[in-house]
């Protein structure tokens, strides 16, 4: 049973398209996150939700829209994809807000052509 699962694992698409990445956790955690890992492997927080409420929204283009239908799910929708969006997107969860032990998904590698 995978604790934090993301789909799809790989995504190749053309510039201008819209795509979504889904994340689900079965750990009963309250808080979920999206991190972006760039080509130099630098990890940067994008969004965080606690019990379906948005609590962190970093300086991210508004083409990126997270959605949390319930506390076990956090999806990421990206409109009008650009070349610079190519990265690995990691979903993570933690028991509560703030610095906690994060459990990461395996990542979703997005390639924009």
């Amino acid at each position: 049973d995978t604790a934090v699962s993301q789909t799809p694992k790989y995504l190749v698409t053309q510039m201008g398209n819209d795509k979504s990445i889904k994340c689900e956790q079965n750990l009963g955690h309250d808080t979920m996150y999206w991190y972006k890992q760039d080509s130099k492997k630098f990890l940067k927080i994008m969004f965080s939700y606690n019990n379906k409420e948005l609590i962190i929204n970093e300086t991210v283009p508004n083409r990126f829209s997270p959605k949390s239908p319930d506390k076990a799910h956090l999806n990421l929708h990206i409109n009008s994809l650009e070349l610079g969006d190519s990265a690995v997107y990691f979903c993570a969860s933690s028991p509560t807000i703030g610095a906690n032990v994060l459990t990461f998904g395996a990542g979703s590698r997005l390639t924009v052509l």
Partner: protein
Amino acid sequence: AQSVTQPDIHITVSEGASLELRCNYSYGATPYLFWYVQSPGQGLQLLLKYFSGDTLVQGIKGFEAEFKRSQSSFNLRKPSVHWSDAAEYFCAVGAAGQAGTALIFGKGTTLSVSS
């Protein structure tokens, strides 16, 4: 500004040799500190964490780290490296229980193990 610095981008160690990966942080509040490991094509796995108490913490896979407040450091060590330890290592810092905060990661250190 809150930040984590991992000064070594890439380290190569012989199998069986000891390892130390450096991490320095800058954080306004009392920090909670973490080391994560990322194997190729995988997500990040927690190696160990420091919240409070004993400044030498033990983790999985034989790793340990020492918190030195005076030096703002949290270096990761292993006495004898195995070939399977080759991976990307990330140090992270944060503050527990504070809404609006998340872990801040360093840029990582790539560990190669030579035979």
